[in-house]
């Protein structure tokens, strides 16, 4: 069984995202451990990319802040080595295909295995294109997380049927970012996913309040929160540990109340 599934063993999962190197990699390590302590079940670590086309303003800005302090893929790997000495929480990378391609698929996924990365989310790599890296990722025990969107329709079964790790259900049209309202028929999508797959499904994009976490936690196996966390890091910089822990606790409590 994939280690990622540990995140879903104790009821509903809370998945937190942060951009590696924002405000710096020492702080990223501290914030990952803080989020775990506050109850996060899985952490998504963003490897910064110059042109993140699936991100809204908040995460775009975090990518720029991180790159401007000199964060590189190798330095992110080094940070994960250090994190892994302190925790066994499932860790997945979120990045765009070009940094992975340019690093070399073989080298990248071997390095993932070596440092203890359990999965990867690549928003600009749809089902049709995953063949070029999937066998390499698999050989290194890295789950390639599949995304399902409000527009996926007839594609849901095919994508879910081959999904491993967890399924990332995109709540809304558009890019990442906090939303006050989500209108997609998520229950319908989740029903179709469950008919096709036993892989846990978590909902992300737009979730930022405990009320939303409770609502979507009730529907799915977990919720994913990115922009709201990154916004706290943007606001508090190197002093974000306490506010982050408070926020993650409130979100985790809302998720497991279901």
């Amino acid at each position: 069984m994939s280690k990622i599934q540990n995140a879903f063993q104790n009821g509903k999962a809370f998945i937190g995202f942060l951009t590696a190197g924002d405000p710096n990699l020492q702080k990223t390590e501290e914030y990952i451990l803080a989020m775990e302590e506050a109850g996060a079940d899985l952490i998504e670590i963003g490897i910064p990319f110059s042109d993140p086309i699936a991100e809204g303003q908040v995460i775009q800005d975090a990518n720029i802040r991180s790159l401007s302090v000199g964060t590189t893929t190798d330095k992110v790997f080094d940070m994960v080595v250090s994190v892994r000495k302190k925790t066994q929480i499932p860790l997945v990378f979120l990045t765009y295909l070009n940094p992975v391609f340019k690093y070399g698929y073989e080298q990248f996924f071997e390095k993932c295995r070596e440092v203890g990365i359990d999965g990867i989310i690549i928003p600009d790599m749809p089902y049709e294109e995953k063949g070029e890296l999937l066998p390499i990722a698999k050989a290194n025990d890295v789950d390639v997380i599949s995304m399902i969107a409000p527009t996926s329709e007839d594609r849901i079964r095919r994508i879910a049927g081959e999904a491993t790790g967890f399924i990332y259900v995109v709540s809304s049209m558009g890019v990442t970012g906090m939303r006050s309202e989500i209108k997609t028929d998520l229950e319908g999508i989740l029903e179709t996913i469950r008919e096709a797959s036993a892989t846990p499904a978590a909902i992300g994009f737009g979730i930022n309040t405990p009320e939303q976490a409770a609502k979507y936690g009730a529907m799915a196996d977990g919720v994913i929160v990115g922009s709201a966390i990154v916004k706290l890091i943007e606001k508090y910089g190197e002093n974000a540990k306490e506010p982050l822990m408070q926020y993650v606790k409130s979100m985790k409590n809302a998720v497991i109340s279901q």
Partner: protein
Amino acid sequence: MAKGRYGIHGGQYIPETLMNEIIHLEEAYEHYKKDPEFNAHLNKLLAEYAGRPSLLYYAEKMTKDLGGAKIYFKREDLNHTGSHKINNVLGQVLLAKYMGKTRVIAETGAGQHGVATATAAALLDMECEIFMGKEDTIRQALNVYRMELLGAKVHPVTSGTMTLKDAVNEAMREWTSRVNDTLYVLGSVMGPHPFPMIVRDFQSVISKEAKAQILEKEGKLPTAVMACVGGGSNSMGMFYEFINDPEVQLIGCEAAGHGIHTDKHAATIAKGTLGVFHGMKSYFCQDEYGQIAPVYSISAGLDYPGIGPEHAYLHDTGRAQYVPVTDAEAVDAFEYIARTEGIICAIESAHAVAHLRKIAPTMSKDDIIICCLSGRGDKDVAAIARYKGVDLHE
């Protein structure tokens, strides 16, 4: 070759949210490109609205002055809206209309594609929003005003380098938020499949006409055809009908800015490496970790860090040759063709003219070169004046 692939290049590297829409677009395109009503409608617009066929002009004075090959210009600058962009835009906006869309969005660099899209949208009653890097809205302020005059909403893009690549990012982000009523009218032979194919097909009218025109005028094929290359739409249009004529050299001229030995250039073939960005596998200017590099050119239309996947393939196979041309060479050519032929061409097109000046004298009088003048230069006059240190107020 696999569908949507040009050798190893191309593909569909886009968010899942767009996948069904892009599959739908391909199906609609395959259907309408065979539909007599759609084609009659498009051909009527090209002939009666855009002014096609464009002239194939024999540049007698330049031919004499350079003293080598016979020089012809394919005059895309004479099209309505002043560039080749209208060929693709009429096709895509009409396709959007037949697909039942009511809104089009587009990116623009120099503003030519934005103006063309806004024009077609006005004519075909579509809502239109254009994404343009803030840097470019300053360099090409008149084109911003033109687009607004045509009823389009222009969004200045303030992310990243605030130029063409960022405008593409933002247009893609906008498209993921609204696909039902909206088509993203991509301006070049780039992006995810089927865009490189659709844009190539609509632009291939350039070489279809040029081939017939040169055979009529000269009774033989040209020695070389050439054009400037940013994303590569006018060059792909200029090359396409000649790809299977191996005796015809295909030459693309990319923007070398301050020179390819500096870090201020946009010369993707000369300096780029294989990558995956903006929906396609191709060559990109990027660093060792795959971060897309800031690029530079005096020409906003060539200021792009990638190149269309079919060009990347023509480069790999050696079928086409790509050469870098600096800002200084382009400005020199801009002035030269104005004085010699009385044509003020776009600074983008001037990159091709600059290389033409280098190769024509090395060829014989029996050789023929067709150079695509992709656009007219009115939009560039103020910027070139500033470049030359002229204190000019519009």
